[in-house]
């Protein structure tokens, strides 16, 4: 995002120091945690089964959209889980259109029909982001030209026929990074306009599967080279974004563009969060709209949203760091999950006293014994086990439930 004014910092005024509270430009509606897929890198909370029985109603979503729009929200992301498992997405989209949102549906394409697409178009949905999931199967299918690839191709064709840009999102991990060339060929073959190659971030299920999913540095370097070659070849026909994995950087990312600065996430059960994985933080109570919390109060005043907004909460080494505005100390959730101290520097940072945790994780991914452990797929059965406190050894290395 550029020029949005969303990076507004506390600004000294003439008489007193008045803090400008940023606006929630981006509303993310995680409308359901249900999903027909079982991705090993899923960023949904590992105990998501706890939140699938009490989803917000259509009316509740509509009032969320209205209230957030009044507060200045402009971009709307509808995601999940698989949002298309709800049969009221048409109504939600139509309301978003009436309110003037720029809206985006993030889907695996499972359940997308011509009829629904027509309804989305009529309602004013602005774009659709198609995620490629079981990529190995799809590549195989692509090469051998069989069913699932055909299905993706059909969905992609339908999206394009309705005048939508073809935005493709591919999560990259050890099992597909060597196939990046084929992935890009496939993206081109289905007519993608934008491709986001998102390296796995380690939250939720992907954190549990980290040793199995993390690529090596060599793989990563190669992948970037392949991407650059491809870019040079296709030119402006296809825009390719390569999102580097933060474990291999020596500075953390500016998580969510700052806590409570731009993004407001409303989850399936009505909990309002500044970041997808914020529930993993200790001593925090996140407002829930089913308990009558207003979004206005939640965003502007709730302890949860004000706690890590700006940089007052920082301690060393971040507090006196000349780079602190660049990354705001990185991700609070990652920091707590990995170090047990939510206010420290993100361990990805080479200045963090806990940076060795990241280096160790990179080593672990090279350890054939750890790397060959079975992957824990995201599904209801595993989620139940985790919620009940089974699978302790998997969760033990982390300071709360990923």
């Amino acid at each position, binding site marked *: *995002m550029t020029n949005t004014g969303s990076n507004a910092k506390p600004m000294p005024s003439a008489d007193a120091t008045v803090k400008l509270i940023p606006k929630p430009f981006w509303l993310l509606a995680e409308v359901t945690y249900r999903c027909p897929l079982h991705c090993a890198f899923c960023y949904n909370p590992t105990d998501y089964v706890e939140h699938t029985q009490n989803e917000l109603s259509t009316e509740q979503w509509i009032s969320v959209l209205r209230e957030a729009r009044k507060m200045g929200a402009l971009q709307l992301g509808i995601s999940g889980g698989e949002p298309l498992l709800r049969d009221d997405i048409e109504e939600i989209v139509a309301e978003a259109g009436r309110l003037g949102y720029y809206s*985006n549906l993030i889907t695996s394409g499972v359940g997308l029909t011509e009829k629904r697409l027509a309804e989305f178009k009529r309602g004013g949905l602005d*774009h659709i982001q198609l995620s490629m999931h079981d990529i190995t199967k799809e590549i195989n299918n692509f090469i051998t030209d069989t069913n699932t690839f055909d299905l993706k191709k059909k969905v992609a064709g339908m999206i394009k026929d309705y005048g939508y840009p073809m935005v493709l999102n591919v999560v990259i991990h050890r099992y597909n990074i060597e196939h990046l060339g084929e992935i890009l060929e496939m993206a081109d073959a289905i007519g993608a306009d934008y491709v986001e190659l998102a390296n796995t971030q380690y939250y939720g299920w992907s954190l549990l599967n980290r040793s199995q999913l993390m690529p090596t540095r060599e793989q990563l370097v190669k992948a970037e080279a392949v991407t650059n070659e491809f870019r040079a070849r296709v030119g402006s026909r296809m825009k390719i*974004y390569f999102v580097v994995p933060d474990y291999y950087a020596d500075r953390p990312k500016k998580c969510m563009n700052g806590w409570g600065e731009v993004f407001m996430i409303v989850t399936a059960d009505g909990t309002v969060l500044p970041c997808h994985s914020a529930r993993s933080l200790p001593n925090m109570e996140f407002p829930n709209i089913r308990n009558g919390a207003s979004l206005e109060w939640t965003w502007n005043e709730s302890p949860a949203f004000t706690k890590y907004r700006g940089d007052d909460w920082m301690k060393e080494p971040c507090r006196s760091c000349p780079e602190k505005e660049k990354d705001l100390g990185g991700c609070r959730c990652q920091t707590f999950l990995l170090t047990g101290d939510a206010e420290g520097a993100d361990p990805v940072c080479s200045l963090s006293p806990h940076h060795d945790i990241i280096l160790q994780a990179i080593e672990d991914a090279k350890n054939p014994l750890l790397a060959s452990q079975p992957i824990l797929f995201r599904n209801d059965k595993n989620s139940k086990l985790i919620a009940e406190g089974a699978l302790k050894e998997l969760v033990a290395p982390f300071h709360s439930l990923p």
Partner: protein
Amino acid sequence: MSDKIRSEDVFGLARFYRFQWEEAQNGYVLLFPEGMVKLNGGAGEVVKRLDGAKTVGQIVDELKQAFPDALEIENDIYAMLELAHDKYWIERKTNA
């Protein structure tokens, strides 16, 4: 990428971009899949007129009439269009 903008060129918004007045921002914004840009007053007036039919020359005339006191308006408009084109916010529409 920066090729010269000519007065007979016709521009429209790039595909998938949306342009709208935003009360909360008190200004015009451009919206697109990866984000948004807030346009300043002058830029907003220019982009508002890019309807895929008017030429750059016609838009310059219109703006000169609408803002008779603005100096250097022609240069500003060209500079703005160049920037917008470099950033892929706008694209050339087929013209004679």
